[in-house]
């Protein structure tokens, strides 16, 4: 067992897979010599050399496109898009190419690649460097979307993503890079499409990803301590595929559900979760399913404004308490 930061866990996961499989390669802007602008790929170049870890020009279409071309023909690239927001400049691959190729060619062409991106807010980068791009990716059939919240999950899910025969978007939360956690020694491989109940509870279910996971856990503690409300907290971990079984089972026990999203309100992933629960667990629900989100505005830059936009522990507590009291 080692204590690793989330960013160190990224590098460990990448290294684990590159050591295992010669076909795994890493590319992106400043991922090699500089070890990544978030230092999440530190040491990879030193260990695996410039043939396998490549710095690229500022050409995001070329990064994702060449990753896909390589994946189609025999490599397993891990491509980095520095800030998730920038995937907008190469979105054709997300929306039109990665997930459709195998399907359209009736299985002739494969696309086993991983796109890592620094996702989410909380570090005062403003409206164009803080968005939650899981919401821009999960709607495309054929594309898997993973968003770990702890160092151990980072390693295990990254390994699972690299070994997956289909394209996976791997979202590292910027606000978590500096956080620490225990990571078991040896090879770790997790399973995509599995949510985790991090805190069992009986009164309601909180469903979160990324930075909203620790906040939901803290909110659950506070709800218990201050109001006697026993909240179950689920880390979704994977937005696609979706572990609806775990979610529906939890709602079957708690009868109330809250999604905790840091994105602007409209068409965040919580809408999909709520629409599934409202349809399939309607008669399990004792009250409305509620989405706790940022207000429907872009994220302002200064920390004191950003803090008002992204759901805080206090806002989560307040929303749950009020709704359960209603």
């Amino acid at each position, binding site marked *: 067992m080692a204590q690793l930061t989330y960013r160190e866990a990224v590098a460990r996961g990448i290294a684990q897979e590159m050591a295992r499989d010669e076909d795994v390669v890493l590319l992106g802007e400043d991922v090699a010599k500089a070890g990544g602008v978030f230092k999440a790929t530190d040491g990879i170049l030193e260990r695996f050399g410039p043939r396998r870890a490549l710095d690229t020009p500022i050409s995001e279409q070329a990064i994702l*496109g060449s990753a896909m071309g390589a994946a189609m023909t025999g490599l397993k690239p891990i491509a980095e898009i520095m800030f998730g927001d920038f995937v907008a400049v190469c979105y054709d691959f997300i929306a039109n190419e990665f997930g459709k190729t195998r399907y359209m060619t009736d299985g002739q062409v494969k696309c086993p690649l991983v796109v890592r991106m620094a996702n989410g807010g909380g570090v005062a980068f403003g409206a164009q460097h803080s968005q939650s791009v899981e919401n821009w990716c999960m709607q495309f059939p054929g594309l898997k979307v993973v968003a770990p919240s702890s160092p151990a999950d980072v390693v295990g899910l990254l390994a699972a993503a690299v070994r997956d025969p289909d394209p996976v978007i791997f979202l590292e939360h910027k606000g978590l890079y500096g956080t620490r956690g225990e990571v078991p020694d040896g090879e770790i491989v997790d399973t995509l499409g599995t949510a985790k109940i991090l805190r069992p509870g009986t009164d309601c279910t909180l469903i979160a990803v990324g930075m909203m996971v620790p906040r939901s856990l803290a909110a659950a503690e506070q709800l218990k301590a201050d109001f006697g409300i026993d909240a179950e907290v689920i880390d979704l971990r994977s937005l696609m595929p979706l572990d609806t079984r775990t979610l529906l089972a939890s709602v079957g026990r708690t009868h109330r559900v809250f999604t905790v999203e840091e994105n602007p309100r409209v068409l965040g992933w919580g809408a999909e979760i709520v629409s599934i629960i409202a349809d399939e667990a309607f008669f399990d629900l004792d009250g409305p399913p509620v989405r706790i989100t940022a207000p429907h505005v872009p994220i302002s830059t200064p920390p004191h404004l950003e803090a008002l936009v992204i759901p805080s522990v206090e806002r989560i507590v307040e929303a749950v308490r009020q709704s359960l009291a209603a």
Partner: protein
Amino acid sequence: MKGEEGSPDRANDDIGEVRRLEMYRMQVLIRLFEERVQGLYLENLITGTTHLMIGQEAVSAGTSAAMRDGDLMFCTYRGHGHVLARGAPADKVLGEIMGRDNGLMRGKAGSMHLTSVEHGVMGSFAVIGSHLVLACGAAWRARYKGQDDVTVCVYGDGASNIGAFHEALNLAALWKLPVVFLCENNLYQEYSRIAEMSAVEHPSADRAGSYGLERIVIDGNDADVVFRAVSAAIETARSGGGPAIIEAMTYRQSGHSRADPAKYRPAGELDLWKERDPLKLYKARLRELGIEDDRIAEVEAQSRDAVNEATEACKLAPLSSPDLIMSNLWADGSCAWRN
């Protein structure tokens, strides 16, 4: 234009009689195939959109003749001819276009997306620009793995103005990738003249310098010229000399897509290009080189038979199966997204 190398000399030059007859057979096959596609559309047997390449056959024939087995090709939605030239059977190509079960992809995706990995055709791409960067990736893989295949990426004049073009060319040149970018300049981006849409006359070749590459403009209506230019580029790429960009000047005698009457053509333009029809020119070349008429007629017949047989086979083939819609999204064959 590097046109001179194409002028006839003798049947036993660097190209040779056998290859010339094969390139002629292929041009005829593509022509007849494309005419048949248009006919089947008018018969309502082809329902999706199609983009024919009548008039551009020499590019397909010359390019594929220059490629080896194992070399890879990335095409556009205007790809029927290239896919045929790489060896995909006419019935499978036509079946795909007709949405039949015997198609390359069992009729799931149609004319714009023809793919035959077996024949090195990694796909036909319909969002402009994407396949230029994909080709970089395929070539990068070859170098990474020490495999000596070369990737050829065919695209249009209009595609030369999209952002991905720039990113692909820079990366290919920077990483010295074994990839050949082959621009089919057919004078039009859909209904607009490329000359009115580009800041330079040759939208691809005039930009070669931006990537430290040689400027190459060739006569795309002469299969020999295409063969020689692509062969040279592939040779360089295969031996580690990096990428090339070739602009082949040609003309699309058909409309942009199946329903386009092409009214935007200036008067006389089509006639002028029909005089330079690649099949006509090439047949004359064969004769000039002393190849007997009956041998020419023989390959013409082969092509005619192939298209006829393919048509019959496809008419009999069942429509693509409804199962297709729920399969092969994921590697396990399923389309499940939840448990």
